[in-house]
């Protein structure tokens, strides 16, 4: 009986692995590193997570979970509430609707696809914030953020792939 409960618990924990990776990486992205130039151009690690799981296990990270991760990102960073909820949800929708594209493609193609999705996400978030604040915001930091996020994409996806291999093979 205990074995049954433990195995159910184990399965439950595995099912939530994608969501946990998202929650954790959003916190990591908020750590204050003291980088001198250009303020804090933190990578949008949450976007990489949403992109990855939407492409490979959308059943474990559905659209509403992407929405929730975006909301989590907004609350942790103190940004405009709902901004990343919208962005992550739309990114999830864009990727999950093109699932066939991601089957069996090389990493370079996946990376390129992420470049496109993240560019659209950054552009949209920039426009939405300008609308919300009613002021023109310099776009150069957004560009840097996009560049840093793309640069970190291989590392983060490697980690997520290892986690997927380790925990989600049987699910």
């Amino acid at each position: 009986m205990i074995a049954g409960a433990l195995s159910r618990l184990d399965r439950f924990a595995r099912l939530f692995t994608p969501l946990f990776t998202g929650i954790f990486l959003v916190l990591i992205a908020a750590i204050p590193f003291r980088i001198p130039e250009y303020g804090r151009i933190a990578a949008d690690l949450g976007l990489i997570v949403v992109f990855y799981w939407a492409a490979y296990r959308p059943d474990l990270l559905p659209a509403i979970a992407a929405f929730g991760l975006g909301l989590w990102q907004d609350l942790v960073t103190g940004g405009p509430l709902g901004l990343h909820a919208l962005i992550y949800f739309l990114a999830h929708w864009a990727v999950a609707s093109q699932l066939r594209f991601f089957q069996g493609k090389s990493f370079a193609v996946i990376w390129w696809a992420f470049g496109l999705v993240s560019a659209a996400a950054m552009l949209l978030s920039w426009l939405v914030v300008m609308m919300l604040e009613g002021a023109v915001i310099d776009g150069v930091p957004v560009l840097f953020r996009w560049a840093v996020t793309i640069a970190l994409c291989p590392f983060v996806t490697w980690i997520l792939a290892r986690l997927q291999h380790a925990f989600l093979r049987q699910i």
Partner: protein
Amino acid sequence: MKHSTGSVQRLAVPVRAIAQRFAFFLLLAAAVGLMVVGKAETVLVERVRSGVMDVVAPVMDALSRPAATVANSVDHVGSLIDLYEENNRLREQNARLLHWQAAAQKLAEENAELRRTLGAVPDSVADQISARVIADNGGVFVRSVMVNAGKSDGVRKGSAAMTGLGLTGRVTSVGDRSARVLLITDLNSRIPVVVEGARARAILAGDNSEQPKLIFASHTSGVAVGNRVVTSGHGGVFPPGIPVGRVVASDAKGIRVQPFSELHRLDFLRILDYAGTRATALQAKGDTDG
């Protein structure tokens, strides 16, 4: 029987498609709704934000320590390399500062004497709460940091936050054990300041760039590059005289100020409980007068 189950199945597929499309628009509307509600800054939103902050604070506190240690070690190594020059520079600075210390003491005595003569109300000294920066933000749209001091440490909404070098920001959100400080460079930051020398009052408005600008200046005639900018104390929320920055550009495009505080390298902040101490000081004066 078979006929009825077949018709139920035929009904289920389009219903699911409609439900999916409905879910999409529902989530879309929810996101937009959240943005509107978030902009309205209601009490509920405040409470949710500070609630999440309190949950996240201990985790961020632990996570940010290794990064802080690494940054400090890097600084340490850097300072070891420059040891000789640093030593000379510090000797010269020390000698200059000793002169200033003597001058300051003389001025302080003169000041106290004049205040006594005039019967002026003393400026209240603000209580200070020390807090560590435990989380940064996305950096692009909002310039704010999270600190690990909250209501239980005496932090109030609207308090000034500063480093040893100068003003850093204002507390916008307070939880039990954590608080959010909006930096002076943020788009929504507005601080009443005065330009020393020109004695021009203005508002320091951030625009998410590294150098906030001065708006609504009472006059711009005497403002020159190099002038110091300090808080004016208008509105009674910030103590007057806190160093803010130095004017670095003063032309047709506007007046830009370079903050003294190193906003990229915030480690510890001092939160000033000015409004609280001022209220007590005024009350005390009222008691003695009446």
